[in-house]
C-alpha cells in the first residue's frame, strides 16, 4: 500500500480541507452524543466511547477506500450486491429486532445493520452499470437499473426500514438524472406516477405499518394528540425552538436531558445540538455540511471518467438526502422516518458506511491526479 501511495502521488490528493470538515462534523457528533448520554449507561461502554470506536473503524474503512482503486471496487459490485442481498434476506429471518423493526444482525456484543452498507453497494452497482457501456434507450436507462434496485429496496422495506428504502430510491433517482433522461421520458414517468397515485396510495397506505401511518398523520396535524403520536415531532420542535440564538449550553438542554426527547443520541441528535448550541451552532453545522457536499460535487465534476463521476454523484446524493431529510424531519418539515444524520448520529454501521463512502469519494479525486493511470 505504501508504494502505491507514493507512486500515485497519493498524499497530494489527501485534501486537508476535506478531512478537516469530516473531523469537525464527527467532533460535533461525539460532543452531542456525550451531552445526551453522559448520565446514562450504554451497556458495555458509554455511548460516546462506543461512537469513538466506530469512528476509529470508520477511519480505517476511509483509508482503505482511499488507498484502493475504485475501478477495482466497481468490478466487485455485482458479487457484493448479491452478498448484501443475502444478508438482507438473512436479517428478515434471523435478524435482531428492536423497536418493532428487524434490521440488525447480531455479531457478539455488537449489531450490524446491512441496509446501511447496501446503500453504498447500490451506488457502486449503479455507477458500474451505467459506465460499463453506453446505456441508450428507455429500457437500458431506466428499467434495467430499476430492476437492479428493486430486490434490495423491497427487502429493506420489508424490515421495515422506510428511511433506508427512501435513500435507495433517492440514489437511483439521482443517478438517473445524472445520466440523463429525455425530458419526454421524464414527463411520462411523472404522468404515470400521478395517474397511478390513487392505486398506489391504496397499496402503500395499506401496507404501511401502524406507526408509519401515525407518523404521517402526526406530520399532517402535529397538534393532535401531543402525548401520543405527534409527541416525537412536537418535542423535537420544542427542543430546537427553545435553543434560540445562542442555545442553552452543553448539558443545558432540558428537552434532551430530561428525556422529553427520545432517541436523542441517534436520529434526533440534530435537535439536541440545536437546543444546546442555538441558531449559531446550527449555522456552523449546516455550513460544514454544505462545505463537505460542495467539495464532493467538485470531485464529481472533475472526475476522470464516468464511473468516477457517477460514484461521486451517488455518494453526494446519498449524503445530501440523509442530511436534508434528517434535519427536515427534526424541524417538522418532513414526516419522521428513521434516517440518521450522517457522521453525527450514534450508530456503528451508519458511521462506518458514511466514512467508507467519503473515502471512496477521495479515491475518485486521487485517481484524477494520478499520473500512471
Amino acid at each position: 500500500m505504501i508504494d502505491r501511495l507514493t507512486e500515485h502521488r497519493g498524499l497530494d490528493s489527501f485534501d486537508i480541507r476535506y478531512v478537516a470538515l469530516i473531523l469537525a462534523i464527527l467532533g460535533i457528533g461525539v460532543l452531542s452524543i456525550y451531552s445526551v448520554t453522559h448520565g446514562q449507561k450504554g451497556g458495555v461502554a458509554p455511548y460516546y466511547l462506543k461512537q469513538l470506536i466506530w469512528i476509529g473503524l470508520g477511519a480505517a474503512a476511509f483509508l482503505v477506500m482511499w488507498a484502493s482503486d475504485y475501478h477495482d471496487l466497481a468490478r466487485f459490485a455485482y458479487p457484493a450486491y448479491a452478498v448484501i442481498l443475502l444478508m438482507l434476506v438473512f436479517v428478515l429471518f434471523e435478524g435482531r429486532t428492536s423497536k418493532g423493526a428487524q434490521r440488525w444482525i447480531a455479531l457478539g456484543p455488537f449489531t450490524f445493520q446491512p441496509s446501511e452498507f447496501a446503500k453504498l453497494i447500490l451506488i457502486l452497482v449503479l455507477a458500474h452499470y451505467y459506465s460499463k457501456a453506453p446505456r441508450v434507450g428507455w429500457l437500458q436507462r431506466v428499467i434495467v437499473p430499476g430492476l437492479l434496485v428493486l430486490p434490495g429496496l423491497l427487502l429493506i422495506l420489508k424490515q421495515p426500514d422506510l428511511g433506508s428504502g427512501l435513500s435507495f430510491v433517492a440514489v437511483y433517482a439521482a443517478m438517473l438524472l445524472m445520466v440523463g433522461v429525455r425530458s419526454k421520458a421524464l414527463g411520462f414517468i411523472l404522468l404515470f406516477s400521478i395517474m397511478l397515485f390513487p392505486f398506489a396510495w391504496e397499496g402503500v397506505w395499506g401496507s404501511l405499518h401502524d406507526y408509519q401511518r401515525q407518523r404521517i398523520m402526526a406530520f399532517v396535524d402535529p397538534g393532535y394528540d401531543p402525548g401520543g403520536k405527534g409527541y416525537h415531532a412536537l418535542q423535537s420542535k420544542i427542543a430546537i425552538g427553545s435553543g434560540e440564538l445562542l442555545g442553552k449550553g452543553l448539558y443545558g438542554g432540558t428537552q434532551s436531558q430530561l428525556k422529553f426527547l427520545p432517541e436523542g443520541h441517534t436520529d434526533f441528535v440534530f435537535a439536541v445540538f440545536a437546543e444546546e448550541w442555538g441558531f449559531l451552532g446550527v449555522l456552523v453545522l449546516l455550513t460544514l455540511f454544505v462545505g463537505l457536499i460542495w467539495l464532493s460535487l467538485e470531485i464529481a465534476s472533475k472526475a476522470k471518467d464516468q464511473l468516477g463521476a457517477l460514484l461521486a454523484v451517488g455518494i453526494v446524493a446519498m449524503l445530501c438526502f440523509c442530511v436534508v431529510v434528517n434535519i427536515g424531519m427534526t424541524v417538522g418539515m418532513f414526516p419522521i422516518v428513521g434516517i440518521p444524520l450522517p457522521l453525527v448520529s450514534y450508530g456503528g454501521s451508519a458511521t462506518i458506511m458514511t466514512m467508507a463512502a467519503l473515502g471512496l469519494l477521495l479515491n475518485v479525486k486521487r485517481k484524477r491526479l494520478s499520473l500512471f493511470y
Partner: protein
Amino acid sequence: MATVQYPETEFGDLHRRLFILRVGLLLVVALLGLRLWHLQIREGPYYRDLSENNRTRLVLLEPARGLIYDRHGVLLANNVPSFSLYVTLEDVKDREALIQQLSSLLGFDPTLVRKKMTARGSKLLPRKIKDRMTLRDAMLVESNRLDMPGVMIQVESQRNYPGGVTAAHLLGYVGEISADQLEKPEFVDLHQGSIVGQYGVEKSYDRHMRGMAGQKNVEVDALGHEKKAVVVERPQAGNDLYLTIDVRLQKVAEDLLGGEYGAIVALDPNSGDILAMASRPGFNPNVLSRELTAKQWVEIVQDEGRPLNNRASQGQYPPGSIFKIPMAVAALESKTMSPSSTVFCNGGYQFGKRLYHDWKASGHGYVDLHNALVHSCDVYFYTIGQRMGIDVMADHYRWRVSSVRLRTMASATVLGWCRRSWIERRGTFKSYRLFRAGRSMRNRKPSASSRTHSPTSSQRERRRERNPPWSRSVGKRGRRKWRRSGLDRKRTFPKNSETMRGSSPLHRWNRRRSPSPCLRNIWGTVGPPRLLLRKK
C-alpha cells in the same frame, strides 16, 4: 478498463447538471436555514416557554395490586397509601436552608437528608428522600410547599400484610423488579421500579395480581408543579386472590411451632385443600417489601434458622415414615405385635428377590416398638407389615383412619410432614390416599350401575385408563358418563406418580392386582396401597 463515451448531448453536460444540483442544494439548505431561523429566532421565545413552563410528559399510573384473602374472606394482604418525599435538586435554591427546614418541620435527621441529597444522580430527576411518611408529615409538607420549591409529596401504594408474620412464607413479599427480571419475557410490559411479587404466592400468582399500568399526561411547570393532568389510560387493578388457607388454623399451627424450627401442613382430606402451612422461623413480609438496608438483608440471609426458607415446601423430609404410626397402631390393635416384642434389624429386609435397605446401613439391632418409632427403623415395619398381611392392614386403616378425620391439630401435625411437591402431585401422598379410601367406602351409596352389574376391579382399571377421570370434565357426554360411573364424587388422581414408573419389584408390587375381595372396592377407586421409595 475502457472509458465509455456517452453521446455528447446526453452525458456530456454533466457539468450543467451538477450546476443544477448545486443550486438545488443551496436552495434546500436555505430552506432549512429559514425554517430553523423561524423556529429558533422568530418563535424561539414561544418554544422556550413551552420547554420551561409547559413540559408535557407521560406519567405511569401504577395499578393497585390484587388483594389476598383466606378461605373465609379474611384479608391477608392489602395496599395502603404511603407518602414519599421527593426532592428535585435543580429546583432547590438553597440546599442547606431546605435541610434545616425539613429537619425542623418534620424532625428529619439533617445528616441523613444531606447524604441523600448529595448522593450521585441526576439533578433534574426527583430523588426519594423519605418514604412511609405519616399523613401528618405529608400534610405539613404540602401546606409549606410554596416555601420549599423542588419538594414533592408522592402518594405511592405500599403492600401491607396486616397479619405480619402470619403465613409469611405462604404469602411471600413484593419488591422492586430486578434488572434480571426485567429481561424476562413474562415481565415485558413492566418498567424499572415496578413492584412485583418476589416470593410465595405473591410471586407465583404475580401475573394475575399485578394489574395493568395506566398513563397520565401531565403538564408541569419549571418548578415541577403539576399544572394539568389528563388521564390517557386508567390503570386496571389486579385480580384478588383467595387462598384455601384458614387463617385461624394457620395461627394455631404457628403457635404450636412456637420458637421451634419446623413446619406444619394441614390438609382438608375431603378436597385436598391446604388449610394451613406454617414454617418457622419466619420473617415479616412488611419489612421485606420495603427497601431494606444492606445490613438488614445480610442479617436475614445469614440467620442460623434460615427464616426465608419455607420448610413446608423447600425442606427435604421424606414422607414415608409418617405412615409408621398408623402401621404401629394397626399392629397393636390386631395384636400382631406387643409393644415389647422385638424384631432384629440387620440393615435390610429380603422381600422376593430384592433386599430393601434400612436407612441405616448397619442396622438397628433388636428393636421394640418404642425404639422402632424413635429410630424410625424401616425393617421393623417391613416385618410387621408382612406379618399382618394386606387384609388386616387395609381393614384397620379403613375404619381407623377414617375415624381419625384430622379432628385435632395434633393429628394434622403427625400427618403433615410432607414436601410441597408431594402435595401438588397429590396422588403420591400415600397416607392421604388412604384417608380418601376410607371415606369413600363409608359414604358409598349403591349406584344404579353397580346394582345391575358390579364391574371387577380390572374392568374399572381398564375403563379408567381409557377415560382418565381428570379428563372427564371435558364435554357434556364425557361428564355424563363420568357421573354415571359413580366416580365423580370421589377424587381420583393421575397415576403419573414416581411410584408407578419403572419395573423394579417395588413397582410391580405397587401395580399388582387386588388379592382380596374386601379391598377390591377401595382399589377400584383409588388403587392399591403403594410402597414409597424413600429418598435419602
